């Protein structure tokens, strides 16, 4: 059989059953689109969190009593500074401020503006601030979500914090930081440490926790051992652990979705299996098989490409309305995230395998049935 004849028959076949093919192709495209949209979102968020985590301190030390975190005494700071290989030891004072009418909370973060910062994101914010102007009175720098929240609730450039004794502390907003760092800092407020202590009524000589870096990765285990030898009531959180738990979380959300999605795929495949009986043409088995196989492959490929393009537009051009809540959660100040396009071949391959293999596998047997139909029967 000449190649051009084969091609002509293939096109003819596709054209003749175009409405049937179109139906299958539209449904397949939608199935692929939904699947890829979820995987794209998950992939982007993972890439973004990885970027954020890089800017986080390597170690965080907390104090534990009765299984709960309590404040750390300031003396621990010097003890940690004496460990070899440790750098940018930062005392941190922070806490959640609960805004009861809306059932939302802000993350208040106290910063010693003259000290070295272990978090690179905060370091950047501190460097961009005109300290003389900022520190001239008690002010705060707020995240994007907080800024919007204040505007919506008629706080024009300030907020009245209430401390546990019932006193009202009015703090003006100095500036806000940009959208780039949105996932972690959306609901964050940065202010001088003393101001934060007065809002939460904390002791002068205590810290929430201590963050520091160990530039040499090979030393991480040694430092960990030394920390545990210092105190018995110590809890150390490493950046590795946080990265892993984030990874697990996204895997969990994406994986659960995939597992449920399996049912959809299987149902679809069953429908395909039953509906795929097409009129036989009465050629030799080999040629019909080949023809049908290529026909199916073209439909699979077209739906795959269509679906991926739809998902790409949905996620990266329109920022995935509705679906993004599945991953980001919407309980607190709403996160407005611009997804950055991260598409690798591994992901595309995954989508293709997940969709293409069951599809082709399902049509193999019906296609064979068509191929072996007697010409006599086919003409009936």
């Amino acid at each position, binding site marked *: 059989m000449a190649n051009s004849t084969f091609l002509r028959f293939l096109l003819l076949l596709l054209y003749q059953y175009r409405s049937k093919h179109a139906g299958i192709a539209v449904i397949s495209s939608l199935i692929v689109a939904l699947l890829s949209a979820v*995987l794209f979102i998950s992939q982007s968020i993972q890439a973004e969190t990885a970027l954020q985590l890089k800017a986080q301190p390597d170690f965080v030390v907390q104090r534990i009593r009765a299984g709960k975190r309590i404040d750390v005494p300031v003396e621990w700071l010097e003890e940690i500074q004496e460990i070899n290989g440790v750098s940018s030891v930062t005392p941190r004072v922070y806490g959640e401020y609960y805004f009861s009418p809306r059932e939302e909370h802000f993350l208040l973060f106290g910063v010693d503006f003259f000290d070295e910062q272990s978090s690179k994101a905060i370091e950047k914010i501190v460097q961009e601030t005109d300290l003389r102007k900022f520190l001239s009175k008690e002010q705060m720098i707020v995240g994007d979500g907080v800024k919007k929240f204040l505007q919506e609730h008629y706080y024009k450039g300030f907020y009245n914090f209430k401390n546990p004794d019932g006193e009202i502390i009015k703090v003006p907003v100095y500036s806000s930081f940009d959208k780039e760092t949105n996932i972690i800092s959306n609901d964050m407020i940065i202010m001088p440490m003393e101001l934060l202590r007065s809002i939460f009524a904390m002791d002068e000589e205590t810290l929430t926790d201590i963050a520091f870096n160990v530039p040499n990765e090979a030393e991480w285990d040694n430092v960990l051992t030394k920390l545990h030898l210092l105190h018995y009531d110590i809890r150390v959180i490493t950046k590795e652990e946080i990265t892993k738990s984030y990874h697990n979380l996204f895997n969990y959300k994406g*994986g659960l979705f995939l*597992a449920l999605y399996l049912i959809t795929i299987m149902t679809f495949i069953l429908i395909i299996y039953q509906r795929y009986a097409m009129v036989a043409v009465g050629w030799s088995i080999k040629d019909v098989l080949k023809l049908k196989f290529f026909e199916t492959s073209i439909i699979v490929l077209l739906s795959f490409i269509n679906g991926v393009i739809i998902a790409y537009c949905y996620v990266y051009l329109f920022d995935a309305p509705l679906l993004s809540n599945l991953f980001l959660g919407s309980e607190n100040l709403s996160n407005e995230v611009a997804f950055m396009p991260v598409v690798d071949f591994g992901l595309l*391959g995954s989508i293709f395998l997940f969709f293409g293999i069951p599809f*082709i596998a399902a049509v193999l047997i019906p296609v064979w049935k068509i191929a072996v139909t007697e010409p006599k029967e086919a003409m009936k």
Partner: protein
Amino acid sequence: MSEIFLSNEVLIYLLSESVIYVLILIAALLSLQLIIKWDFGSYSEIQFTLEKRAYLVMTIITFAFIVKIATLPYFAYGIDKLSDLVPGAMCASGVIGANEYGYPLLGLKIATVFISGTWIIINNLDLQSPNYPFFRIKTGLFLLIAILISIELFLDFTYFGNITTTKPVSCCSVTFGQQGGSNPLPFGLDTAKLLVLFYLFYFMTAISAIGRYAATGFVANILFLVTAYYAVVYFFGTYIYELPTHKCPFCMLQKEYYYVGYLVWASLFSGTFFGINSLPLKWFAKKDVLYTYKFSLFFNTLFVLLVSAYVLVYYLKNGVWL
């Protein structure tokens, strides 16, 4: 259920493997029936139905094997992705070694892909001739592969089910690095001798491919596969990583090295696959299958040029050897 199963890549990989396994199972049952009742001389209706069914079996198997070959690199990719989750693992090496099923699974997968490739070639030969001369050989071979794939699927699930995310595993520098000065190379070879053998075996494969000496090619390609494995891990790899202490067959699959590992291992496996297969095919078909020699020469040469280029480029850039 372990959280490993929720990793997207693992989930999709296991789904593909299961779907393919269902197909293989159908094909195996039909094959059993075929091989028992097959009589090409007969003109009965049964034989006629069987011949039709043979087409179904052939189609299913061809599709299944193509997918099998495609999922081998995907398996490596999925394992590599897991290295973020498994403590201590920096690359696929640690994850593969996470439990006792990993290495047998990997070995079995490569073996299955090799034999499946042979099956596809025999099937093509069979289709080209008018009277199914290799029918019994290929059906028998397929039943053997079906058994291997059953074991493989079992290992797939036990392997992924038994990876723990709490127990640390050893990183590739522990598995492949020199411990206590002992020599990791077999037969007390040193790097210089290994390289001499590597190029020597390569020339043997090249000569047997050009001269179409199937038996020599068979031996030469097996020897070449083994030496090439050691040469890549203990010599060429260090140039790919540009670090004399980094010895690992898996890290080169990562993005940092532009995924070159896939090309390295694919060209080596393809080259030796065709080289080794020339002999059994000649034996079955009673004639030389010419393209196996061509492909063997092409892929082996590609592989050798690729790994040698890394060494030369490094030397030209830095003016020293590692």
